[in-house]
Structures are given as C-alpha cells and as structure tokens.
C-alpha cells in the first residue's frame, strides 16, 4: 500500500519562486545526500536524513547557473553549468567554485544527466548529446544541430537499459511535440511525432517516463487534467523514418483542468504515479499518489502554501517546493505479499540506511530498473520465470537424446549447435533443463563429467542456482574451482551453505593444484603496484632489525603471534597466492546473508579461518592505504564486502584470547638451557 510519511523541510532559507526558485534536485554518489540547485547562483549538498546542508557552493556575482548540478557517479565529482556554456567540476573538498576546474563549451547546454553505471551525458539545446569525457577532452569541439528552427527541448530523461544509457528528450515546435530517443549502445537517434489523438486542444504540461525492457512509457499530464501514456520503442525498426506514436488515456482528471499554477507528474514505480496540483479547480494544491493499474487515488497530501510545479523522486523521497521551502515527503509503497501476510517480511529499516527494495518483484526482469534504482540492485532481482513453456525447438530434443548416451565430445558439438540457434523467451529454463540432464547422467555415471559443456552453459549468463541445483555440489565434489568461481560470479541465488562449502574448498586447496587451474584473475589487483614495490625494497634493505620473519614461516599460528607488532609489515605481502585471492574475492562478491552464513563458517577449520581473516585484514589494510578506501584493479571487492562479516570481529577476539593463552604458555618458558652449534 502506497503511503506518504511525515514531511520535513530541507532548506531553512526561503527560496524565490519561478526562475530564481529551485532549478533541480539530483542524487549524489552517497546515499541520502542530494544536490539542490537554486536558481541563480547556489548549489547545496544536503544530507536528507539529518536535514542539514553538508556544503554550499556559489558562482560569482554576474554568473548564473543554468542547469541543475549533478554528481558524476564514476568519480564522485559534482558538475554544474553556468551561463549556458561553462562547465564547473568540483568535489566536496573545494571551497570556491571560482577556483575549480572550468571548461567552456562551444554550444549551449540544456541538461547534464548523470545516473549510476555510466558517465554523465550532456544534452545540448540544439539536440546533440555527448559523453562528458569526450567533451572534456576537447571542450571547443563543434556541436552539431539536430533540432530544426523554433524547435525547443521541453523535457528530458535518461535510463539504463541493459547496461547502456538511453536518453529521451521531448521537443516542441508550433504546438507539436516530438520525442527523440538517443541510444548509446548502437548510437542511433530516432525521432517520433507525438500524436495527440482526440484531445487535440489540450496542451501538454508535464512529462514523466519509465522504461520497460523494449519500450519507454512516456506519460504526460495535459491541461485537461488527464494523464496520457505513450509507448515508444527503444530500438526502432527503421531509425531514419520519422514515426508517429499515439497516446492513450491512463488516468482521468487527476488535477483540475486548466489549473493556473504549476502541475507536475512523476512515475514512482510500475503502478504508481505522483501528481502535484489542485485536484479541484477551487481546492488547494495537493500531492497525490495514483495507482495506474486500478486507477485509484492511493493517498494525497495537501500543500496549503502552494507549490511550484516541480517534483523529483529519488529512492524513497519526493522533493517539492512547499511555499518557499524545499520539502521532502518520504514515500513508501509496500506491495502486499504472502510473506507480508505471514508476518515474515522485514519492515524495520533504520532511517538513513540505503533503501533496498522491500520485496522482490517477480514482474521485473534482469536489466530492468527504474531510473532511480542503481544497477547493483537490478542485478539482484531474480530473473523472470515464465509459467507457460514454449514448445522446445527440435535442436533441444536432439541435444537431450545426445546427452543420454553419447560421449562428452558429441555433447559439446550438439550443444554448440543448440546455442547457435536464436534464443527463445524460455531459453533459461531450457538451459537449466540441459544442465539437470547432464548432472543426472553424472550421478548415475560418476566418471561422466562434461566440464566443457557445463562451463559453456554457465557462460550463457541465464542460469541461476535454483535452475540447476546440484551443479555446484558436483563441482565441489570434483574440486573444480574454476567452475565454482564462475558459478559464484554468475548465480544470484547461491545458498549460504554452498558459499561456505566453496570458501572451505578455496581455503584448503593446495597451492600446487591451484597452479594447474585456470582462474579468472580480474578481481585481483596487479601485485606490482608502486606502493607494494616500495615496501618490498624496504624490507629487502632492512637486514636484521624488525624484519623478524626472514624465513618463510610455515605455520599460521606463528604469524598470528607476530600480528600485533608486525601489523605494518603485514601490509606488504598478501597472505595467499594471487589465484587463491581471486577465488576468495569471488566469495566476497557473491550475495549472502550474514545470518545464514555464520553457522556454516563455524565448520571451517581454525587455521583456514585464520588465513581468511588474514586475507580480509590484508585487503582492509590495502584499502586503508588508499584515500578513497578502494582497492586497485578491475573488479576488486569493495570495502563493504571486506567488512561485511562483522561477526568476524568476534572470531578475531576469540583468536586474540587464544593467542594470549599461547603467550602465557610461552612466558612460562622464561629460562632454558639449549644446545647451539655454530657452523
């Protein structure tokens, strides 16, 4: 049920209305922090849960900010445009906007879009789009004109579709509206004429959009007070042709027709939209939540001091002007679910923590996400499982019969044939069935282990643990660490017991057997980074002093003994070989819940736990060396992944206690007479 929570005011400084009011609210790279651009000269970074500003930056007198500041999620820097053409890039450390990086472009900017997972995209007023990096490399580059004369951009938005950004912008020319879709995967720009249908007379006042795999669903709020929906394909059949799209009525009279003041519309999720405006001609302005599926008003909140027709929605917060103050109204929508009904759904959430969706939406598929959700979340959403099964293609039948009796070689050949065929919608279930079939034969015939075929099937990227239960168990049994690494990287739903079994194997497998296996080393940073090298030089030079362990000491407990005083030295060397590190990183990357992991962690022998802890500690120290608390390399584990086992602290304490006992034992040997022979 959709609900609006208690509102609160963000800015204590009253804002002017109109062009000097609010230019925009944008997310920053930190949860709960938002960039608010005041029309005119100021950008303020707010921490919403604390309702306090973290930083404020202004352009010089005489300059004017023309486009809302955004955060570059890849670098954490902020970007703002003033005087249409001048880009300023800065970070929280900077004090004065006048002294930060500046680039003057050759054309006027309409908006900068920045979303998770891609570099910021710059949309020019003439309709051209550029990536920020390319622009900064050559700021004075020529910007082409896409739009015709008198055509102006009214609204724009960007989405991530299958890891690639898709930008939509709406233009108006002589009362007609056009939609442009710019894709970056194929670098195409397609143009659509928005056909108004019957309601020719009404004027479109506001837009919002969401994306659904292949279509952008564009919603518009017209002056008649109704919401219309238009579906625009992301990948058109013929991009060059100017196509027409027709809109259809979605909600009737959500605001009073011909409302004088600003109205606004924004999509909240698949079934909900938020509308800002007076519900009746005479009434005060309201924020209303509508369910588009059932066409019902879910909740509404009166804004007696008026609003400005601007509405932003990020995470769980709706931002709008109420009177002269920027107001935040948290919005929650909990879908009724069986788990909820049974009371098994977790409702409690600490304020200020990252907003994880409360539910798994079975209707959303991979790569799908709302503009505000980041890509990491979308990965976790389980793949769609179709109930109806299409008739399997003949290649599948052929393959199944091959699997039943033929040699591994033949199966590989058949599998290649099968995979070459175009994918059907239920491809993943078919692949799952193939794996199960292969595993079925493996159980009855233990010598049969079609490793290559299985690897190939995993690499189709459609499998999950639940689609092929038994696969990882078989790989564990065969100590096939390469396959396990692949599974850990690919499957979103591995049970913690299996994750732990993998960890156990990865810790116990000998270095020699690791040497022979091929392991994806992407997650392990280059071992010869400069810091490391420098440290190495040092230990080399240090002859006696505190470099106590010149012989490679073999036992873990000895290392543990030295830990307190040698903490600094430990940074220098990774306690595990790079291949093992890559495997452990796969574990760290995998999704797991601490609560379920812990009971299984206890099964791991003490010396292996110690090794794992040492590795985690090593990663932590490596992180600490870096100001950004990140590790070098392509896909290193993040700090959260390293630190996620807060329970490990407890284990660490237990180890320290053991160590103390050990020390006491040593202490008793205060005096001995030993035999020494000098050679």
């Amino acid at each position, binding site marked *: 049920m959709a609900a609006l929570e208690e509102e609160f005011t963000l800015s204590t400084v009253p804002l002017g209305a109109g062009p000097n009011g609010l230019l925009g609210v944008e997310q920053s790279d930190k949860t709960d922090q938002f960039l608010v651009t005041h029309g005119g000269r100021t950008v303020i970074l707010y921490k919403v849960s604390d309702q306090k500003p973290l930083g404020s930056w202004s352009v010089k007198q005489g300059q004017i900010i023309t486009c809302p500041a955004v955060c570059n999620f890849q670098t954490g820097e902020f970007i703002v445009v003033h005087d249409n053409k001048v880009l300023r890039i800065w970070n929280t450390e900077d004090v004065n906007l006048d002294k930060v990086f500046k680039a003057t472009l050759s054309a006027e900017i309409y908006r900068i879009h920045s979303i998770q997972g891609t570099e910021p995209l710059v949309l020019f007023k003439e309709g051209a789009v550029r990536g920020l990096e390319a622009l900064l490399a050559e700021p004075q580059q020529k910007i082409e004109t896409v739009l015709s004369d008198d055509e102006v951009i009214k609204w724009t938005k960007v989405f991530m579709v299958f890891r690639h950004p898709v930008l939509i912008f709406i233009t108006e020319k002589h009362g007609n509206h056009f939609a442009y879709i710019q894709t970056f995967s194929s670098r195409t720009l397609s143009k659509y004429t928005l056909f108004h249908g019957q309601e020719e007379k009404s004027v479109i006042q506001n837009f919002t959009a969401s994306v659904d795999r292949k279509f952008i669903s564009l919603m518009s709020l017209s002056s008649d007070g109704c919401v219309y929906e238009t579906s625009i394909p992301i990948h058109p059949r013929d991009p060059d042709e100017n196509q027409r799209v027709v809109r259809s009525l979605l909600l009737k009279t959500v605001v009073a027709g011909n409302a004088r003041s600003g109205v606004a519309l924004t999509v909240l999720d698949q079934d909900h939209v938020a509308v800002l405006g007076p519900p009746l001609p005479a009434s005060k302005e309201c924020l209303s939540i509508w369910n588009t599926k059932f066409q019902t008003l879910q909740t509404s909140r009166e804004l007696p001091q008026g609003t400005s027709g601007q509405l932003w929605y990020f995470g769980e917060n709706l931002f709008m002007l109420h009177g002269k103050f920027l107001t935040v109204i948290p919005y929650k929508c909990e879908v009724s679910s069986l788990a909820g009904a049974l009371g098994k759904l977790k409702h409690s959430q600490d304020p200020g923590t990252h907003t994880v969706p409360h539910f798994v939406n079975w209707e959303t598929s991979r790569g799908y996400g709302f503009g505000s959700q980041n890509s990491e979340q979308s990965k976790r959403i389980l793949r769609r499982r179709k109930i109806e099964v299409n008739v399997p293609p003949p290649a599948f039948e052929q393959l199944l019969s091959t699997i039943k009796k033929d040699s591994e070689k033949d199966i590989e050949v058949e599998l290649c044939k099968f995979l070459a065929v175009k994918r059907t919608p239920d491809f993943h279930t078919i692949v799952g069935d193939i794996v199960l079939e292969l595993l079925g034969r493996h159980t009855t015939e233990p010598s049969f282990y079609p490793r290559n075929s299985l690897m190939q099937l995993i690499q189709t990227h459609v499998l999950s643990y639940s689609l092929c239960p038994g696969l990882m168990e078989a790989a564990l049994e065969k100590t096939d660490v390469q396959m396990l690494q692949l599974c850990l990287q690919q499957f979103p739903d591995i049970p913690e017991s299996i994750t732990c079994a993998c960890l156990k194997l990865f810790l116990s497998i000998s270095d020699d057997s690791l040497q022979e296996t091929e392991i994806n080393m992407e997650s392990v940073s280059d071992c010869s980074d400069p810091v490391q090298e420098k440290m190495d030089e040092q230990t080399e030079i240090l*002859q006696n*002093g505190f470099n106590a362990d010149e012989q490679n000491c073999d036992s873990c407990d000895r290392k543990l003994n030295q830990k*307190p005083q040698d903490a*600094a030295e430990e940074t220098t060397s990774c306690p595990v070989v790079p291949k093992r590190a890559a495997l452990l990183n796969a574990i760290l990357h995998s999704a797991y819940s601490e609560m379920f992991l812990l009971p299984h962690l206890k099964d791991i022998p003490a010396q292996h736990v110690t090794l794992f802890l040492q590795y985690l500690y090593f990663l932590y120290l490596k992180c600490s060396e870096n100001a950004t608390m990140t590790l070098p390399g392509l896909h290193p584990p993040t700090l959260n992944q390293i630190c996620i086992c807060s329970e490990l602290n407890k284990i660490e304490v237990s180890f320290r206690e053991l160590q103390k006992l050990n020390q006491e034992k040593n202490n008793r040997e205060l*005096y001995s007479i030993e035999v020494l*022979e000098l050679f």
Partner: protein
Amino acid sequence: MGEFKVHRVRFFNYVPSGIRCVAYNNQSNRLAVSRTDGTVEIYNLSANYFQEKFFPGHESRATEALCWAKGQRLFSGGLNGEIIEYDLQALNIKYAMDAFGGPIWSMAVSPCGSQLLVGCEDGSVKLFQITPDKIQFERNFDRQKRSAVHKMLVDRQYMGVSKRKCIIWGVAFLSDGTVISVDSAGKVQFWDSATGTLVKNHLIANADVQSIAVSDQEDSFVVGTAEGTVFHFQLVSVTSNSSEKQWVRTKPFQHHTHDVRAVAHSPTALISGGTDTHLVIRPLMEKVEVKNYDAALRKITFPHRRLISCSKKRHLLLFQFAHHLELWRLGSTVATGKNGDTLPLSKDADHLLHLKTKGPENIICSCISPCGSWIAYSTTSRFFLYRLNYEHDNISLQRVSKMPAFLRSALQILFSEDSTKLFVASNQGSLHIIRLLEGSFKHLHTFQPQSGTVESMCLLAISPDGNWLAASGTSAGVHVYNIKHLKLHCTVPAYNFPVTALAIAPNTNNLVIAHSDQQVFEYSIPDKQYTEWSRTIQKQGFHYLWLQRDTPITHISFHPKRPMHILLHDAYMFCIIDKSLPLPNDKTLLYNPLPPTNESDVIRRRTAHAFKISKIYKPLLFMDLLDERTLVAVERPLDDIIAQLPPPIKKKKFGT
C-alpha cells in the same frame, strides 16, 4: 666452530619508558628524545642513529617539552615547573631554573634561536633570553582576557557526537600566516591567522591527534594520532604545472600500536615516538638520494648500552632497571644434547636479590664483579658499593659506607678481572681507580681528563691481566692507560663514528673497538698500532650485510682458550669472529644458519669464513661466554613488553 650450551634467559623484565617528546636539531643532525620517566636521550642521526648520550631520569622530573636552542643547546621543561639545560659534554644537568608558572607544558625557541618561550600551567607564557651560560627571565605574557586578536572556534562536533571538550593538542604557525591545529576530535585544521577563519579541515582519526611537526621548508608536516597512526601532509601543486599549492594528506603510516605522543620532521625522515616505547624513523623515499642504509625504516626500542652485567665465576646476572637492581643465579643441567635441543634443568634459575635505590633518581650504571662479591651502582648524585657474602644458599648484603666525595656520579663502572680493583668513570672526564679490600676500599689514583677537554668517558675496558685500562668518550679517541705505572699509555686515533663497545683480549692485549657505522678495529696496545688482521679487514672491507645491520654492537668478549675468537653481539645477532679463517667478500653468504649436509669438505672449506653468525636469540640484550663451552644470552621478546603496556585503542578490523 663448535657446540655451546646456551643459558637462554627471558626473565629480564625490562620495559622501556614511553616516549614523551622528540626534538630534532638540523644543525648537528641530532635527535633529542625524552621519556616519561624523565630520561633524555640524544641520537646522532649521522652516526647510524646511535644513541650516543643520555641523561638519567628523575621521578619528579616528567618532561613535557623539549627543544634545541642557540645551535646545540638543549632545554627541557616539565611538570615540576623547572626549565633545565643539559650539558652535552659533561653529560649532566647544567642548571635547573624555576619558571614560576607551575608545570611547563610547552616550549619553543624564537626563530633566531636566542629567546626561549615556555607555556605554563597558570596560562602564562614566559620569555627567557638565552645568555651564553644561562637563561635570563625577560617577559611574562599573561593570559589574554579581552584583547584576543582572533578567536578561532574549533568545532567540537565529532561524527555527530559532541564531546565534552575539544582539546587542541598542538599548533603550528607557518610563515605564510597559516595556523595548523591538531585536536582531540581527530581533526587537522588549517586556519588563516589574518582573518581567524577555518580554511580546511581534515578528519583523520577516530581518536586524538596528539602531535604535529613541520619541516623547515614548511612544505611538509607530520601528525601522530592516539591510534598509533602517523600521517604525512604535503604542500603540492593543485595541477601539474600550476603555482597554486594546497595541503594534501599524502601517506598514512602505522608503525605504532599506541598513542604517538611526539613527532619530528627531519629533512629526510619522519620521526615518531609514543607510549609503545618505539622510536620510529621513517625515511621519506623521495628525499633519500641513494638507496642505502638510510633508506630503511628504523625502529629503535632498546637502549644502545648494556643494562646487564655478569659474574662468570658464580654464574650470576645483574639486571639494571630504572629504580632497582635484580640479581639472578643461572640454573644448571647435567644433560647433553645435539644442536637445537632444550636440555632438562637440574636446577632452575634463582632470583637472589632485589635491590631498590633510595631517592627519586634513576640508576645510571651498575656492575657486578667477576667474582660475584661486589655490586656497584650509581645515580646522578650518589655512588653505592655493596659487598655480597655467600653462605651456602644464603646471601647477605653489606653496604660499603663512607664513599669518598669525588665518587658522586659515575657514568660507567668496571671491576678488574680478579675483582680487586674498581674503575669508575665520573662525569667531568676523570677516571678513578679504587682498590677493594675485604669490606672496605682504598683510593689508588685518579686520571684527570686531558687538559682542555671535559668530555665524559662512557665506555671502559680492562685487560684480563689488569695492566691496561681503555676508556672512550663519545667523540674523541680511545685512551689507554697503564695501570701499573698509572699513566696514559697511548690514544687510539679518533674515528668519525662513536664507539659502541670496547674490550681488551686476553694474552695479546689487543683492544677491539666497535663503532656505530658497524666497523670493528683491532688495536695492539703493546705495539701502539692497528693489528695486521685489522688492517686486512679494513683493506678488504666488511661484508655489505654486516654494514647494513641496524643496531650497534653493545658488547664484546673473548674466548678464554681461543685467542683467535672474538664474540660480539647487537640486538639481532651474535657473531664469533674466527680470525684464523678467510674474510667473507660480498659474494659470500654471510649468514648461513644451516649445517653443511652432504657437501664435500672442499666446498665447506671454501665457503667457511671468519664470521659465524647466529640470529636465534633476539632481541638480544646481552650475551657473554661463561666458560669455554657455555654462553649466556639475555633476550627480551617484544611481546612481553607489549603485554605490559596499557592496552591500545581497539580498532575494529572487520565490520563497520
């Protein structure tokens, strides 16, 4: 080389005092370090970081501030409210002067070096003029009540939690007007002194930032935190070719486990010290020109002098602590074994005596006679001599009273091999010889220092036959006296690096001298010249690994039956030099702990060299030969020291 029974002693319960202040002197490249017990140590950074001088501590003299002034004069201030100047030649306190402001918390010297400022408990700052032989009170700046030029308000907020009080632990005032403050909320803040505004704020720790030191060029500074971390900040260009510069936190170092109470910044290194008692010298790699010995991280934990003496005859060890002495008798075994075996004890070691000093002064030096019947020790103002009587298992102690007035403060004490003579090096450079009789003594002679010098002798060595006494100060050469004729015999030419250990070999009367640059010389006293072996090794040079050792040799002794052998040790190894074997060159494996296995004798002979090194015992504070086949090694494991320190601030390694 042979087999030894080694008495491996780990019951020397020595815990160094925490470091309170460090002060670096650029002119002489020396570092003054004060410890919580009031001890002040002087390290010569040019001489391999050798701790060349020290001033013993005093219970009522907790040092809170230390600074160099007027070139090489050293001052300290402390909780007793006194400003102390140290005499770096005579190694005593030149004078102590009450500042009359209560405990002194801080001290600074004016840029020209002629004025000394102290900050006192009562809130006043007092200015002293430094005169050639003293300091003279000049002005008193009382606490400002109304007319503060700027008040810089420090945010007490820390991670959203407001602490009761935010304490500024240190400030630095740069010549461009920037003020840098470090405080108890973990912040390093940059202020503009002209406007009194906060320019920049770095939150670097979850605990107090306790110390700050700025380089002379003011392009780099270092801060130390209560979490044991040291952060380096540098003034770097904003972009590669712009002249605009900003302070950037460049490198964190974690070489301490406890509070870093003091930091210093030499032109080439960051120096830090604190509660965990280590003095850490971390070279700045970009400032070190050659990749040599100076480029290595140094961690100095133990004093570069002996705290242990030994009675070979009775198998006794005398341990010196700040305020007491402990006498232990070694155990024994009848068993034998092979290399690496621990033998069953037939008798365990005994703690015979615990001798507590009277008064607040720390013990400077102590010694037990080879026969075990005499113990002598000295503090800054008193000299004590005791006679020990052994009756079966009982031991009785008798103080020898009425010590002469000239025996007031000794820097070094030594008994002759036959325990009939006592040699005392006092400050002011004189050497006293005393004959010991049953329960009494007789003053035989005093060697006065060479005319014009006041340098104190810190090291003494007596030849086993009792004829020769060698004495060395910190810089001048080693003097050799003839005890029979009571006159100066010769002076070994002065060498650039201070002497760290001295000993005279039996029979040959060769004087072996170890210096802080790890060179070892052998000088024939009868011939008044360096021996042939010494010349050979100087010509060929020591093995590079030998020269790279980072702790000085603190003790040299000899094998009674094998005149060719010299035993010496530092904190991480001991070595028996067999002068009859060829010297190693840089290609030879210097340290070879493994026994020759199946190699033929030819290879074995070819690889065998004069330096027989063992690194089994460490940190090694003392090693000596008790007899031909018995060694005693006193170790002090770092874990045992850490176990006696207050617990460090617990930092979570996992979780958030």
